[in-house]
């Protein structure tokens, strides 16, 4: 339960922060939530990671669908991901996840008692 709440709050706070702050605010959001809702480091990482993954993956998907994958296919050819739009969404989600995961882990260690 705690895991799920932390995960969802991470995604929510990161989204709100992203409206005003730079892309890196996802790390801060994950960090703050992990401080607020304490979990063990591994679990915190995983909830941050999953929260970041879901947020960036979902937001990317929501940009991609109305765009009919017009741009994602081109960017996926440049990066290079063989022009695969879905792969690009997964890469996007993974980068968001990684940053959020480490941010959350740092937060967890800050609160750790022993």
């Amino acid at each position, binding site marked *: 339960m705690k895991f799920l709440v932390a995960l969802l709050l991470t995604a929510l706070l990161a989204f709100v922060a*992203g409206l005003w702050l730079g892309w890196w605010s996802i790390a801060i959001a994950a960090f703050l939530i992990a401080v607020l809702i304490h979990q063990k480091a591994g679990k915190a990482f995983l909830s941050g990671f999953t929260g970041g993954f879901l947020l960036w993956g979902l937001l990317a998907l929501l940009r991609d669908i109305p765009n009919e994958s017009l741009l994602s296919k081109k960017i996926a050819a440049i990066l290079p991901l063989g022009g695969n739009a879905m792969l690009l969404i997964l890469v996007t989600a993974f980068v968001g996840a990684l940053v959020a995961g480490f941010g959350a882990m740092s937060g967890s260690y800050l609160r*750790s008692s022993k």
Partner: protein
Amino acid sequence: MRIVPFIASAVVTTGLVWALNKGWGTIPPMGRFLSPQHGFWQNAEAADYDYSADLKFPDLKGKANVYFDERLVPHIFADNDEDLYFLQGYIHAKFRLFQMDLQTKAAEGRASEIAGPKAINYDKEQRRLGMRFAAENALKEIEKDPVSLALFTAYTKGVNAYIHSLKESEEPLEYKLLNFKPEEWSNLRTALLLKMMAKMLSSGTENDLEDTNAKTIFSQQDFNTIYPQVPDSLLPIVPKGTIFDSAGIIPVKPATADSLYFGKEDIVTATEISRPDKNNGSNNWVVAGSKTQSGAPILCNDPHLELSLPSIWFEMQLSTPTSSSYGVSLPGSPFIIIGFNDHIAWGVTNAQRDVKDYFEIKFKDVSKKEYWYNGKWEPVQQTRIEEIKVKGGATVYDTVAYTGFGPVMFDQSFGDSLSNKKSLAIRWTAHEPSNEGITFYKLNRAKNYDEYVDAIKSFDCPGQNFVFASKTGDIALWQQGKFPARWNGQGLYVMPGEDASYNWQGFIPQNENPHAKNPERGFLESANQRPADSAYPYFIPGTYITPRAIAIEHFLSGMTGITPADMMKLQNNYFNTLAEEALPVLLKYVNENELTPEAGRYLEIIKAWNLEADPASKGQTAYQNWWNSLEEAIWKDDMSRTHPASPMPEDQTTAELLIKDTSSLKFADNINTPQVETLSDDITIALNKAAILLAQKEKEGKLEWSKFKNPTIYHLLKDALPAFARKGLNVGGSGTIINAVTHSHGPSWRMIVQLSATTEAYGVYPAGQSGNPGSKYYDNFVDTWVKGEYFKLWMMKASEAADTKVKWTMKFGKG
């Protein structure tokens, strides 16, 4: 707190953020780039995106509306001129900001700020060419005229209003990819953009450096044969037989010309890095009501430029209560450049005249502060220390001396990787003070022939052929520009810069520029050919292109009852007029017994060919390769006698030489072989050689003309972003054919305007209105252009705001 794991974890997190927030070489900052709220995903525009908006700006004087039709063409309706150009600037920036920013930075010699060290020499050349100097001189002219200043300033404010409203997440995609920021607009940047056009169209229209070398290996007679001033088959812009007034200015050849200029055999080893494309040219023509079905004149124009995504053009309508014009504009400049209003239509092709000369300068010492002029050491007019900032590298400095002729383009520190390191100053009409923009302001409002002439007469550089038609039935064509009055031979080669006698002595009076109005034959055309035959009383060198004009005249003179549909067909015509001239000679002299079986097979394809360079044509591919191979066989050995090589003759010249001089064409002999080759040998060897390449292409399935040349429209950043390009387009043509599509160059805008009571106009360009690769309006015109089809152009009336063609409305007001 668990100190050690916390620190370790925090370090990993910050390290990750740092690494993802930083560009690595050509890799953008990936965190920001991928972030769906900040990066490229923000540029993924919804297919049903709503462009409507309600916007307020303090700089606006009144209310204005911008109506977008289904092709995203904006129809701007403003209360007054200043608001009109404010909005044009705003709209240009909204759809083309990166393009405007990149092009003007490149024009100024600041490409290294974006592209890094590989652009340093390009930047040095732009600066040594005096691009900024030219723009500053133009800006001074603009500032002298209160009307111009107000218009250009309004445009600049409009661009900046958009830039200031831009959130980081909304920045065009390329800024995110290349990791830089949009820069504030200014009137100087508009002037720079117009100078970019001046370079594109009037800096490559001479061969002075190469011809200086050619002069050392060819006799004067041979030189005139290989590089003739007036081609035999020329059909000039001003119809043959026109009587010209005698020259108003008669320049005097210096007494020393034969020894110090014509007779001097001195190689120049400097070469330009970024010479404008030789194919920069265009077609335009106009037919009088006597030749059309409707009885109204029809005006046609297709400017041939590098094709790019986004396009150099942006289509729009500009209206106030007192004027309405429609056509294509240049993002970065106010006004409609090619188009029509409710009274007239106009278009442009390039004049191809030589307006740039080189003068050899003798400096006192390496400080380049004084040079020998008129018998004494003369101080330079100014020295510019050029500071070139380089992305990912140290700032580079370059010192450019300005003589009385102009900036020193080449000297021992630039442009000459070989031996002699001469100091060469240039004089170029683009440096002269002038205000080209005002011509378009006036043309957009001109109502008749007199107002058209008044509008164009102050247009100095680049020289253009302004075609004209009016609803009152007049047709006209003026070659307009500021052209030096030259003595015979002046400026063909590098000239001595040690005294005033070789400098330009004046300019051809404007009213003596070649022009024609309402000719009896009922049509006028220009296609980059020489504007007049030898009866014109001035020496006017240039890099003229002859064949397209021949084809256009051939078709137009046989036509009556012309409709816009006929003109569409003509703009898309693939007839190879050069092949029509040259092929009979090739077929007559080819020695079929000496051909390889492969070559023999291609010869049969060529014999069966209908002379059309259509996309599926195999004959065109085989012929063209044969021809190219033949030109190489005839000329390459001769031209390689100098380093750098001397220029190849024009295709037209070679064709004419073959036709008139087949038995004695001495250049046919390859000077590098012991035996003496005849023309017949060259023709046969050329086909055998071409057959090898053709066989290889055929194996790859690329014998069809469009597959062979692979027509491609690149993104502005070319090979760096192939995913943003459109490749393998199914179009034929070539630079010397009316439909002048080459690999990545060709008709950048096709327009046909019939000036009937209700104007009937059509147009298309190979790109789309949006510069955003993430928009469906990025390249949505391409397929229409490829098929040779057109869009009907809608000159909207203010009363038609409720028309179903209006898809979105942007409302603007003061606030």
